[in-house]
């Protein structure tokens, strides 16, 4: 990618915003039976896979049954967390009036309590996308994922922390709002986080009880195999969701922003930041479903409450609009995008002087000033 960010005038940004609003309105006006049937079908498939997977694990004395059981349960959890849970909790199906699809009522099959997720993700991450210091999805308080985060020796472990975060991603997400690093530094008092911890405990203990105690216990002599199967399925889900989510905002070419430059954004500027701060993945239809359509991260960040299965349809219009305004539309296959994320995580483990990365000026909009694929970043918003 050798795109540069165009310097749009406020007038251009306003037109750009209006065009996106129009795309959004067209999609909203078209919502109907198709969307409800789609998500219900997905839920049927997911629950079916879950029951099948758990059934197969009970027959794990036959090794292929164990493998098939882990596969089915992994896919079930991936669908539950991504295409169903994440999207429903965005309120994408609130218009249906079905309480089972209500963004405020849905609970998902992972350790993180849904209400905390709605705060940290729907509000904090989606409003303040890629703003260093505000968007805690930037490195999850553990990793150095942007040159804007100043290096210290702790970050020598960056690749190791990333591997651990991938393996235990559901716990990383569950403890996301706890701001562990700020608790450690004393910026936040434990007392402030008591209710949050109680919520995590309530949700996580039910998850642990189900996957690691009850289902193994019901399997009698096969308990160790069922336990191993459930642990494996959770890890498969963790690694997959980590991979997809890290490809959404951290591949090369994606920009970070500072609090100052985003202080008084117009709607057009907000759209502009969402676009520059997100990256898509290309792939088959099945791949998009397995990615919860977060492979259309750009469309998702522009329109977080439009049913995600429509992002693919909207993408053509969005990329055409970007081309018209000369705005880079960051997309690529999983291998390439994730590869650039891995490279970034390793590179940022080392001090900037060793990797030749000049420290980005904090007032500079575009962050990685000398990133190889971004020779000349321009200020985003006036």
């Amino acid at each position, binding site marked *: 990618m050798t795109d540069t960010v165009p310097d749009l005038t406020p007038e251009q940004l306003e037109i750009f915003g209006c065009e996106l609003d129009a795309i959004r309105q067209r999609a909203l006006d078209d919502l*109907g039976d198709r969307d409800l*049937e789609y998500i219900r079908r997905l839920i049927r498939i997911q629950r079916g896979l879950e029951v099948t997977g758990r059934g197969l694990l009970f027959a794990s004395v036959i090794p292929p049954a164990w493998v098939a059981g882990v596969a089915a349960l992994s896919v079930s959890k991936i669908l539950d967390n991504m295409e169903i849970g994440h999207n429903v909790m965005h309120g994408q199906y609130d218009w*249906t*009036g079905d309480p089972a699809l209500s963004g405020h009522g849905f609970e998902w099959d992972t350790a993180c309590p849904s209400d905390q997720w709605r705060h940290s993700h729907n509000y904090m991450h989606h409003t303040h996308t890629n703003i260093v210091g505000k968007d805690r999805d930037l490195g999850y308080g553990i990793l150095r994922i942007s040159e804007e985060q100043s290096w210290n020796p702790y970050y020598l472990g960056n690749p190791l922390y990333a591997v651990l975060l991938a393996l235990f991603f559901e716990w990383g997400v569950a403890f996301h709002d706890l701001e562990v690093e700020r608790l450690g530094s004393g910026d936040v008092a434990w007392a402030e986080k008591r209710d949050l911890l109680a919520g995590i405990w309530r949700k996580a203990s039910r*998850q642990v*009880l189900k996957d690691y105690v009850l289902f193994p216990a019901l399997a009698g002599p096969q308990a160790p195999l069922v336990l191993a199967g459930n642990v494996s399925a959770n890890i498969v889900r963790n690694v997959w969701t980590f991979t997809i989510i890290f490809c959404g905002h951290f591949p090369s070419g994606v920009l970070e922003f500072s609090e100052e430059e985003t202080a008084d954004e117009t709607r057009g500027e907000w759209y502009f930041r969402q676009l520059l701060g997100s990256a898509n993945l290309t792939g088959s239809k099945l791949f998009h479903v397995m990615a919860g359509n977060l492979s259309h991260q750009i469309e998702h960040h522009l329109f977080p409450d439009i049913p995600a299965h429509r992002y693919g349809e909207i993408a053509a219009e969005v990329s055409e609009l970007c081309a018209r305004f000369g705005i880079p539309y960051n997309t690529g296959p999983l291998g390439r995008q994730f590869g650039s994320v891995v490279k970034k995580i390793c590179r940022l483990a080392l001090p900037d002087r060793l990797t030749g990365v000049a420290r980005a000026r904090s007032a500079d909009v575009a962050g990685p000033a000398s990133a190889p694929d971004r020779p000349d970043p321009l200020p985003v918003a006036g």
Partner: protein
Amino acid sequence: MYTEVLAPSKSLGHRVLRSRLIEALAAPHGVDRYLELVRPAWSLRDLRAEVTAVHHPAPGSVTLTLRPNHLWQGFEAGQFVRCTFEIGGCRRARCYSPASSAHRSDGQFELTLRAHPEGLVSRFLHDHGAPGMIVGLDPAAGDFVLPAERPEHIALISGGSGITPVMSMLRTLLDEGHRGRVAFLHYARTPDRVPYARELAQIAVKAPNVSVDFVYTRAARGGHFHPHHLPDLTDPPGSASQATRRSRLPETYVCGPPGLIDAVCDAGDPERVHNESFVPLARTLDGGDTAGAVSFARSGVVAPNTGATLLEQAEAAGLKPAHGCRMGICHTCTCRKLAGEHRNLLTGEVSCAGDEDIQICVSVPAGSVALDL
């Protein structure tokens, strides 16, 4: 099949499904979210019904027969049920009065409704209602019912689609072997618009204590309500003079448009006339004035008062408040008024008590109003 598994009795299957172990295994979604995949009407907690039959009793009308799941507690003749249908992917709730007997032996009940040209739900049900459809239900509600100790003589008067609750009362009384006299009087525009016409004619023949009369408001010798349309229900017949007949009008149950209800109330003893209106009142009564603004506190939206009902104004402002009947009977839309005065369209009363629960579908602002929406 599901009546066996989820029968109201404490069957083993039911007890197992409700156990804490199963709930823990089905976390976080809950047992219902798996049961409904096997059969949509199955639910441990949600009151639902499956449509088992659909027919069109008269042009423009449709009758749905519903088999509710085990959570259904039945209804009293004359009550209404808030039903939720899925139309275009979106749930829509409406209140309808069952027309069947409260004692129907198979536990099912039937709804008859007329497709209004602008009625989204009624038109959908008329055109696309089909067996197998799943309908969400609320428990039956409403005070338009016969007293537990049935009056001896009863007049049942209806207009248009208001026939359903009084039809239910008539069928219920017949099932109970009611011995007193029952006068059934129905107003319709034309004969072809009367659902249940044949069944009513048969009842009139078979049951000597029941009289059935139809009056067609658009026919040459028809017209609107007049006490003379009712047979003499005095005891013994003919014992009262014309003058005293009015005061001896029996217990009367009337359901239909406001004009019919007013006419019947004027003709009889108000104590003995029980009524339910079936026309959206917001449209027939004039709105309040249009001064001030309506603010929706939770959404942070403020809009100038248009004079429409608070529910309509909330919807116009892009909010989606819960609602049902839109005529002030089901209380689904009840919400907290934080400040201001409003006028209740049903009673005409203006209330200035700031902090109170109000039915927004039948309330118009009298000046500025703040709602907890």
